[in-house]
């Protein structure tokens, strides 16, 4: 559990990150979360897991293999998702002006930390 907290904290330390969650990909349920107030973690987890699963199928069907990062950019921010071990995803919600390069780097390193 300490590992989970450290991994989430590593992501949420990046400026402009509103929250990070470890999500069960097949269930779409939150395993652990560190979210700003007002962010509906259950909804984001369910929809991000569904989206990532479908995008993975799309990428593999197109012969592109498994995506390393899914990045959904919207008007007021970005959702990032990376695989984090067996049936797990690390998901982050970023504000519009967040440092997405650093956020992606920290997400991938935190996911590797969890998967190891």
């Amino acid at each position: 559990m300490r590992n989970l907290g450290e991994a989430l904290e590593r992501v949420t330390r990046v400026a402009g990150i509103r929250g990070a969650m470890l999500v069960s990909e097949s269930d779409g349920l939150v395993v652990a979360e560190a979210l700003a107030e007002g962010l509906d973690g259950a909804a984001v987890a369910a929809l991000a897991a569904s989206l990532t699963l479908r995008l993975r199928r799309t990428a593999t069907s197109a012969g592109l293999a498994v995506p390393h990062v899914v990045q959904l950019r919207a008007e007021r921010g970005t959702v990032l998702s990376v695989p984090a071990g067996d049936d797990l995803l690390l998901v982050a919600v970023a504000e519009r002006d967040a440092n997405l390069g650093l956020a992606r780097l920290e997400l991938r390193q935190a996911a590797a930390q969890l998967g190891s």
Partner: protein
Amino acid sequence: MRVIEPWVAEPLQSFLDESGARLTLLMTSAGQVIAQDGFTRSVDVMAAAALGAAIVASTDAIADIMTTSAFGVVLHQGPKQSLVLRAFPTPRGRWIGLVVFGSETSVGLVQLFFQELAEGLAKAAPPAPATRAVLAENFEYELNASLRSLFGR
């Protein structure tokens, strides 16, 4: 989809479109069927409603023994199909939703859209009609009328 009360149709259709559920049953906490989708035989609907209401009543009793508040959701996760059973308040009393789903969706999505269904039903519910006495001679007629609504025959 078949519904006993027309105002249930729109929120339920949204839930069916979004959730990817295979079977959906809405019932009162007494097991009286309000709406169904995916069932083809009336006997299955009646059995599922009775069993679903009984399971919720059992979990309520367990919660009572444990002196905790009632359990929000009952989840049976299977290798191919799973089942979510959830009681929720409506302006017409406490209802129960029974949803069977497969690997094309997830328990997170089903729960997310079920919450929206519960909120949609609360908004769509018209004022409750005046209660009337249930007479034995009306019971069979009303039961058959409900079955016709649910199965179109």
